[in-house]
């Protein structure tokens, strides 16, 4: 039985956070099929039924029929995420979802001997949401594996928006990535673009 079939040819989605890319690599390693943000759940409506708020869990594991939501925010900052999750469970009781907090993710990476990586990907330092303003200077240091250029250019901040609330340019970027690019090609391209941007003295923000 070939459990590894097709894993290498899956296009790399545009992860909003480097920690999501790392979790995807772990799932890939153990041959657990996943989909990235495949479904958006409306969780708040006005009186006319218009959707006011939605929630898109990060991963869906189709073989296990479970959603995973990963948050690497510090514990005191996850109140909004917890509220959304409670709301989702109220409205969709048949949907199975697990929330991985920063401490869970850190423990996961510690288990695999990657504690230093956990420190780099959790808390404010790990936030990679496309920024609202352009960062003041060039990015120093290597680009984490799986992190997009736009993500690397982002300022650290509170990732409280879900997929439906992101700016259109991010969604368009996500769609392009879903085409045919393999994971390794994406990494090489991002690294190349980062190097070019660093040489020119700055990085254009995507928003």
């Amino acid at each position, binding site marked *: *039985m070939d*459990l*590894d079939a097709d*894993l*290498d040819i899956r296009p790399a989605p545009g992860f909003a956070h480097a920690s999501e890319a790392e979790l995807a*690599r*772990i*799932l*890939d*390693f*153990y*041959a*657990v099929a996943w989909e990235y943000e495949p479904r958006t759940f409306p969780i708040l409506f006005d009186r006319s039924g218009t959707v006011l708020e939605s929630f898109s869990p990060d991963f869906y*594991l189709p073989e*296990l029929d*479970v959603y*995973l939501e990963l948050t690497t925010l510090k514990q005191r900052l996850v109140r909004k995420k917890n509220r959304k999750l409670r709301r989702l469970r109220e409205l969709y009781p048949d949907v199975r979802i*697990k929330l*991985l907090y920063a401490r*869970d993710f850190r*423990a*996961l990476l*510690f*288990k*695999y*001997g*990657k*504690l230093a990586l956990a420190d780099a990907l959790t808390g404010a330092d790990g936030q990679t949401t496309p920024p609202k303003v352009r960062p003041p200077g060039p990015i120093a240091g290597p680009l984490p594996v799986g992190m997009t250029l736009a993500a690397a250019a982002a300022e650290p901040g509170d990732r409280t928006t879900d997929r439906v609330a992101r700016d259109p340019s991010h969604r368009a970027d996500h769609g392009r990535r879903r085409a045919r690019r393999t994971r390794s090609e994406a990494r090489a391209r991002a690294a190349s673009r980062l190097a070019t941007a660093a040489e020119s003295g700055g990085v254009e923000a995507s928003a």
Partner: protein
Amino acid sequence: MTRRPDLTADVSEVLLSEEQIQAKVLELGRRISDDFAGRELTLVSVLKGSLPFMADLMRSITIPVQIDLMEVSSYGGTATESSGLVRILKDLSSSIDGRHVLIVEDIIDTGLTLNYLVRYLRGKNPASLQICTLLDKPARRLVEIAIDYRGFEIPDQFVIGYGLDYGEAYRNLRFVGVLRPEVYTDPD
């Protein structure tokens, strides 16, 4: 880990004493012997952590059994990181086709390795496939797996001993203990 492990000082508390473990192993052995009486049973141990548990469990089982060993690469391991995919480092030495198989694990936390193993072994056509674990850490579960024989449910702490390691050390402790956080947060 560059510091030299101290098998006494590095343990902050004994979570399960040798006596508790042995009593539980005997209990599990009795249950397994009853449940599989008259059937062809193969115990499959997953290296390296489950070795002490396997050795004690098989001797507490009172029906004929065969044993086999498997080893699976772990995420983050240097030898396999380049491939990015889990690998069977040691496969079964005998066929399990038509046999009743009991996977013997030291601990189940995320369930990722076990989930892979279960799918792998199901492909080898066993008559049945069940799971026995000494320790269950459900707080860390990513993949839900039905456990047929569970020794102890433990809290979300880093445990060592009775086969469980940190940096390949502490496996030879006769009890299950909690590793002092300073040991794995100490940069030296």
